[in-house]
Structure formats: structure tokens, C-alpha cells
């Protein structure tokens, strides 16, 4: 079932949790709501479920105005972060719960319920555990019971709140793959909330990046990664280097004209910030006009990557560059070596304290070092 969200508003006292959210979700889509704490992603998910009364706006399931329906009537499958399994019920009773609480007329008979629960147990690969209590299950098993319980009511949409948040890394990886497969098999419209960019990009068809109660960008994994629409998205997905620059007569001048980059020509004149990820920087030779000179101040080898900290001669800022597994024959970097780097890919955002940027707490005038410091926390 497709979902349309129009102008959804939610306040908690003076805290504006959702500031007019518009979003269309296609039937059968697997969508991730990605954002930091307090971005409103969970509130949006709960609003879709009907667990949060809205202060404005509308949620539609296909042709139905869901805003007019109670939680009970919405028929959404909601999987809670801590699973919220009923401790005093067996796995079987947990999964059957949604069917057994229906009004008598709509309630399936016992045989149908039994059959349905067994099918679901097979689907989530928990056959044989139906008489266990939640306390006797592992985290991953609880997660799957919670999912089966949500699927039992044949939901219009499946909603998952931080589905892998409470699991350890290994189980998380397995469950992710399994969920992707389950989605392919069942075809439910599925929305999940996560703060983990990797999880969102790996699992979802489309990613919604949220910040401070607004949507920053909606797009496929490729779109949000390759073409971040806002500084926030750039910042949230990875830890970019931010270089102050100017656009003058269609040319981009980095660091007070020590380097010149070509622009697409559409940029407005004036101060801008150049966003470039560590892996988008390349080592340049001496003749490259677009290169920046600096000194190696930090060397870090992590597996297949070599990470260098480069202090720029012009500004004194330290930027980070990531090189693929280096060939030892070509160059062995030492601390203090002179180096020239150039951005192979980058994005420009006007450097002007616009209101939007102030609200996101995003300060483009910060030095690169400060910026990186904060991004890592």
C-alpha cells in the first residue's frame, strides 16, 4: 500500500518535533528514515502508526485517510526497538495476539490462527520455538518474533523502530541480510528508522535524511551519497573536509587563490564552502594548478586504507585524505613530507549564515579541524 504524508506537524510543548513533513512512499518500497538523535525520525514513524496524535497534516494509506483512524484501526505492523514482547505469553501467543483480540465477528477460528502462526514461524525461521517464553530467546530471535507478531495482522505497512539497535554487530549483519530477503519475499511497504548511515544505505531502496524535524533529502542510496543536497547530508554521511573558497567570475578560488578549480558555471559569485570527502582527494603533481600544498602531519594505516592528515600551507587547517592500499614501491609517506592534493570530486555550498544553516547548528565558518572534531563524536 502506498503512503502519502502531507504537512505533518508535531510539537512536544515548545519542542517542534516535526515541521511540516511531506513524503510519498511507493507501495512495496523499503524506506529508511535516517537522522541523528532528535531529528524527528522516530516521531514520524510513530505518527504514521498513529501512536502520536498529530498537531497538523495528514497521513494517507492509499485512498484511506489514516489520520481519521485510531491506532487499532490503522492496521500497521510496528516493531519496537526493544521488541515489546509480552513476557508472560509464549512465542505462539505473542504472534497470535493480534488475531485473537479482534472482535468476535472478524476473529479467525482457532485452526486458522494456528495455521497462520505456524506459517509465520516458518517465515521467520523460528519453527519449534513456539512454546518458549521471550526470556528464553536470544536478541535476534526476539527481533524475529516481534516481526512475526507484526506481520500476523497482515499490516498495511510494516514500521520498524531502530530494528537492529539492540543487537550486537554480528547478529546485526545477519539480520540485515535476512530482512532484505524477507522484504523481497513478502513485498510489504516497509519503513524503518535508523541513525546508522551504513544500515540505511545497505538496506533501503530510498533513504530519507532528517534533521531537526525537517527532511533534508530524499533519494536512492546513490543519490544521497553521490549528490548530497545540503551541507547537513554531506556532514551526516561520512566526514567531509570543508574548505573555504570564493567563486569569482565563474572560477573557484581555493584558499585565497593558491588553487583554482573549475566550476560548473552555475554557482553564484561570492564566498562558498567546498565539501570533499577524504576519499575524493587525490595526490597531485607539482604542475597541477588545482592542487593545494601541505605537509603530512598524521599517518594512519587501517587495513586497506592509508589515511593522511595534511596541514595546508595556506591556511594552516588540517584536512584528511584517504588513499587506497598504497603500493609501497611508489611512495612511503613520512611525517613532515611535502605533499600536494587536489579534490577529484566536491560540492559547493554558499558560505553565508542562512537561517536554515543556523537552525541546523551547522556553522560553515568553523575551521576544518573543529568541523572534523565534532563530526566524529
Amino acid at each position, binding site marked *: 500500500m502506498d503512503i502519502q504524508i502531507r504537512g505533518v506537524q508535531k510539537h512536544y510543548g515548545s519542542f517542534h518535533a516535526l515541521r511540516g513533513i511531506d513524503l510519498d512512499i511507493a507501495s512495496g518500497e523499503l524506506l529508511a528514515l535516517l537522522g541523528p538523535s532528535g531529528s524527528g525520525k522516530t516521531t514520524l514513524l510513530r505518527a504514521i502508526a498513529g501512536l502520536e496524535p498529530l498537531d497538523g497534516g495528514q497521513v494517507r494509506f492509499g485512498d484511506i485517510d489514516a489520520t481519521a483512524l485510531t491506532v487499532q484501526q490503522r492496521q500497521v*505492523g510496528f516493531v519496537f526497538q526493544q521488541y515489546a514482547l*509480552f513476557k508472560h505469553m509464549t512465542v505462539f501467543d505473542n504472534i497470535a*495476539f*493480534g488475531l485473537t483480540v479482534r472482535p468476535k465477528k472478524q476473529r479467525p477460528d482457532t485452526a486458522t490462527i494456528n495455521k497462520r502462526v505456524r506459517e509465520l514461524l516458518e517465515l521467520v525461521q523460528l519453527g519449534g520455538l513456539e512454546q518458549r517464553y521471550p526470556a528464553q530467546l536470544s536478541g535476534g530471535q526476539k527481533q524475529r518474533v516481534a516481526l512475526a507478531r507484526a506481520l500476523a495482522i497482515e499490516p498495511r505497512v510494516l514500521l520498524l523502530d531502530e530494528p537492529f539497535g539492540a543487537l550486537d554487530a554480528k547478529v546485526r549483519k545477519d539480520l540485515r541480510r535476512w530482512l532484505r530477503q524477507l522484504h523481497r519475499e513478502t513485498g510489504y511497504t516497509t519503513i524503518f528508522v535508523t541513525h546508522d548511515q551504513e544500515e540505511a544505505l545497505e538496506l533501503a531502496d530510498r533513504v530519507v535524511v532528517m534533521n531537526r524535524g525537517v527532511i533534508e533529502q530524499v533519494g536512492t542510496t546513490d543519490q544521497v551519497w553521490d549528490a548530497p543536497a545540503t551541507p547537513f547530508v554531506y556532514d551526516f554521511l561520512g566526514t567531509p573536509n570543508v574548505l573555504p573558497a570564493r567563486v569569482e567570475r565563474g572560477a573557484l578560488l581555493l584558499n585565497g587563490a593558491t588553487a583554482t578549480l573549475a566550476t560548473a558555471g552555475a554557482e553564484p559569485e561570492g564566498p562558498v564552502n567546498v565539501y570533499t570527502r577524504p576519499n575524493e582527494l587525490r595526490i597531485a603533481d607539482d604542475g597541477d594548478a588545482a592542487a593545494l600544498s601541505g605537509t603530512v602531519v598524521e599517518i594512519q594505516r587501517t587495513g586497506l586504507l592509508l589515511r593522511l592528515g595534511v596541514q595546508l600551507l595556506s591556511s594552516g587547517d588540517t584536512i584528511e585524505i584517504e588513499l587506497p592500499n598504497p603500493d609501497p614501491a611508489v611512495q612511503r609517506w613520512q611525517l613532515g613530507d611535502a605533499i600536494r592534493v587536489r579534490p577529484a570530486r566536491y560540492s559547493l555550498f554558499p558560505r553565508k549564515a542562512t537561517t536554515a544553516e543556523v537552525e541546523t547548528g551547522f556553522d560553515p565558518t568553523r575551521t576544518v579541524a573543529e568541523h572534523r572534531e565534532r563530526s566524529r563524536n
Partner: protein
Amino acid sequence: MTATALPRPRRARRTLPGLTPTLGFTIFYLGLIVLIPLAGVFFRASGLGLDGIWKVISDERVLAALKLSFGAAAIAAVLNAVFGSIVAWVFVRYEFPGKRLLDAVIDLPFALPTAVAGIALTALYSESGWIGSVLAQAGIKVAYTPLGVIVAMTFIGLPFVVRTVEPVLKEVERDLEEAAATLGAHRLTTVLRVIAPAVFPSLVTGFALAFARAVGEYGSVIFIAGNFPMVSEIAPLLIIIKLEEFDYQGATAVAATMLVLSFLLLLAINLLQARARRKS
């Protein structure tokens, strides 16, 4: 019984000093104050033999007293279970003016001497009292009837249910109720099928504690009961009457019967708690 519900401390902690003197004193003190005296009662009671005990408690007046003590205690405990649950629910879920004050007053029956409670309740429920005079117009007599016994026992057992149910109710996660709602369960269904089962073991514990306390209660009951033999005479009073008549055997027999019944109750509570713990 709280301690039994807490996780056991981890092992390997012999490094701390003082086990021998503290445990030694604990056992010595318990032995002196509890074990030896209790053993004495059972020694006495066993001297009577089962026949002897049966002879005492099968007496009409004793049976009536036992029946009243246990019957009224059961009714009082049921009242406390019902109203105590409501009080606990209201305290945990809602905010209203005066809540803090009421919350503090809940423990009054623990702290107020029973004799004080006894005369206060009698003054209230006698036909000239604030409540008694109103009820008298409706033709209901409370003081000096079994009804009065129930009132006093309800007072004395009131904190138990509230204080056992409250912490458990606090821990019932909001998530569970939301989960039930998304699965289509209506409010009443959620309360009955999700919240009630989670709270039930603590409710039973509270019920049993209130019951045990009420069965043995003496001070707050004797004033309001009127103590008419066969009508409103409770078992503990009968023990005292028998003692005053120097009928030590009779007193011991009644006491032993009450002790055994209380012990069985305590055992049942512990078993129930152990079972509830195993589940979660």
C-alpha cells in the same frame, strides 16, 4: 521477601572481612529470639498430639473464631486487592493534586500503633461516629459486628497491595501497551491481557501479605469487634482468653494452628514468586 526478588550477588567475594562475627551474631540473635522460643511452642504443641489439638480447635467457639479470623481476613484482603490495585494504578499513571500527600499516608497502617487505629476506627464507625451515624440511617451496623472486623483488617492490610503492585506497574513498559494497540487491541483488552498478567504475581503477593497480617491482627480489631463469642470474636483474642484462664494447652493449640496456616501461606508466596521469576 524483597530480597528474594533481587538478583543474587556475584560469587567470589570472600575478600571482605567480618563474615564470622556478623553471621555469628545474626544466628545467635535469631536463635535466642526466634528459633528457641518457636521450637518451644512446637514442643508444647506436640505434647498435645494431633488429637489434643483437634479437640481444642473443634470446639464450637474456637471454630467460629478461626472461621471469623480467616474469613474476614480473606474478605479484607480481596477488598485491598481491588482497591489497592486501583490506588496503585492511579498513583503510577495519573497526576492530580494531593497525590504526594496521599502517597505518604499510604504507609500509615505500618507506622500507626494498632491500638490507636483500633479506637479511632471504633470512634468513626460506632453509631455516634462520623461514618457509623450515616451508615446507621441506612440500617447498616459496622462497629461490634463482623463487618467491623473486616473494616479493621482492611485498614491494617491496605499498604501491602499498593506497595507490592506499584513498583511492578511502574516497570510495565509503555511499549507493551503501544504494541498491543498497533496489533488492534482496545484499551480494556490491553489492560486485561497485557498489563494485568504482568502485575498479577505481585498482586497475589500483596494479597497474601495483607491476608497473613489480617489473620493475626489483634490490636486494631478488638476494639471495633465488640468480641461477642461466636459472632465477632477473633482467634488471637481467644488465645488471650485461654491464657487468662491458664489454659495454656488450649492457647497453644490455637496458636499452633494459626502458625501452621501462616507458614503454609508464606511457603505458597515464596513458591509463587519463584515461579514468576523463572518466567521473566
